[in-house]
């Protein structure tokens, strides 16, 4: 069923990670991604894995669920690994058959590259699992604020994202209802060739677009009726504020980066 899709995959909880300021989490994730790309040797990768595992445990999310978020990109991860395995240059040939050649260097490179992807995906999943979409956009708006001077419409971008996010569940619900209604009238969405299938979707798409436009109209009127006029001079109900825990998190991520730098330039 459509409504089984969880929005932005937010998983409510009460952990330290959930309570961090969204800006801390966004910046921390960006810094950690830099740290991932500083890794060159085994010690570095092991350290990164341990750190990511520790973050997942600290967030008290179901571990299986976090790992399942890799599934949509499993193909890319495996492709990356396979490409390095078979294309990698190297001296120590492990296996050779016609034009296929697997070298030790290629093998190592494949594992490292796909590990980087996995770590990157895991850490960004933790970000989206522990931060509700609305809070996330608040964080993004606040981080973009300094760029207003060079013409980045931070508030408008954030408002657009908030509205879009707000309406995703509504539209999913609406789609679900329309599909059910047309199914009850004998509509068939699964048979026929591609063109036929696309045509069969019309009884769903047309009402859906009509209702989306109607909602957009109503929302615009409702916002104007409440004197909305953009971000100028606007205050907010929930002010973002850094706490001691956020400072701790920043210190931690800097330490992680320092360790990664140390492991890179002065390997054990």
């Amino acid at each position, binding site marked *: 069923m459509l409504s089984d899709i969880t929005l932005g995959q937010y998983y409510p909880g009460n952990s330290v990670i959930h309570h961090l300021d969204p800006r801390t989490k966004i910046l921390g994730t960006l810094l950690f991604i830099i740290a991932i790309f500083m890794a060159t040797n085994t010690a570095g990768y092991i350290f990164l894995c341990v750190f990511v595992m520790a973050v997942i445990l600290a967030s008290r999310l179901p571990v299986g669920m976090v790992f399942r978020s890799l599934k949509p990109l499993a193909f890319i991860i495996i492709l990356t690994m396979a490409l390095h395995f078979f294309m990698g240059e190297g001296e120590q040939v492990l296996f050779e058959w016609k034009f296929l050649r697997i070298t030790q260097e290629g093998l190592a490179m494949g594992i490292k590259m796909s590990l980087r992807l996995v770590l990157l995906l895991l850490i960004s999943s933790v970000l989206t699992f522990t931060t509700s979409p609305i809070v996330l956009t608040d964080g993004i708006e606040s981080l973009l604020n300094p760029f207003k001077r060079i013409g980045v419409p931070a508030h408008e971008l954030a408002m657009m994202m908030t509205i879009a996010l707000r309406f995703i569940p509504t539209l999913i619900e609406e789609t679900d209802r329309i599909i059910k209604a047309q199914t009850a*009238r004998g509509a068939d969405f699964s048979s026929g060739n591609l063109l036929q299938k696309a045509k069969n979707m019309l009884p769903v798409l047309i009402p859906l677009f009509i209702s989306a436009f109607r909602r957009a109209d109503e929302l615009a009127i409702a916002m104007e009726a409440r004197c909305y006029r953009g971000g100028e001079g606007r205050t907010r109900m929930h002010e973002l504020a850094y706490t001691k825990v956020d400072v701790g998190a920043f210190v931690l991520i800097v330490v992680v980066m320092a360790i990664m730098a140390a492991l890179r330039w002065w390997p054990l």
Partner: protein
Amino acid sequence: MSIRLEHVDFIYMQGTPYEKQALSDVSLTINKGEFVAVIGHTGSGKSTMVQHLNGLLQPSKGKVFIEDVDLAGKAPNIKACKQKVGMVFQYPEHQIFAETVFEDIAFGPRNKGMSEAEVEQQVHEAMDFVGLDYETYAKRSPFQLSGGQMRRVAIAGVVAMKPDYLILDEPSAGLDPGAKEAIFERIMKLYQARKIAIILVTHSMEEAARYANRILVLSKSRILMDGTPREIFLHHRDELRQASLDIPQTVQLVELLRQGGLKLPEGLLTEPAVVAAIKKVRGLH
């Protein structure tokens, strides 16, 4: 000739933190020829329950039978069975998509495999039933009609499939009193002419008392009561209160008038009956 639910449980978004049990151990049989009103507080599971009656939702636990065919089974005629049950959703006008009223109403009958001649006849009949003149409206765009007319088009789209069971989920929501009255008049006419089963989900005790011959009361995902309007509205007021419902205003009015000394007979339920009784004791005509 019946639809049967056996110990049906239904859980929305099972296995997520948003899990929600919407039906618990619901068993019931609806026979052809019955007019069943389903009442209950918002969120009590009415819409969820009626969506099980034609297989739009599959129970998390339990079984659904239409004319003794198990919808979860492998019988070849499951699809045909499901199509015996017509379903008018809340705000059905939101599902209209075709360029003309005719095309929209013809969608269901065509999917059911009727011949073009039969389709035309069914569309014609269905439009008559909902009170839309064929010559005037068939070629119009449905999007230029008023809200009440659009709803009638949508209801006609289901009626044209000639269902043996017709489910209506709050068909009068958001309509003015005149349009409400008109819709129910049409539904009653359809019910009497075709001897089908009507399953009406409603918030209005007055509607339930006036039109139905059987009432199902849902509360917190369970069936709280199942009986005739008379039993339920005249003898189970306290249970209704517990389910955040109340008896129809007509019954309350009769009670107050009797307390005030007016000699009205007992057991008055529907609006026309109450009006007639008051006129009679006051010697009016």
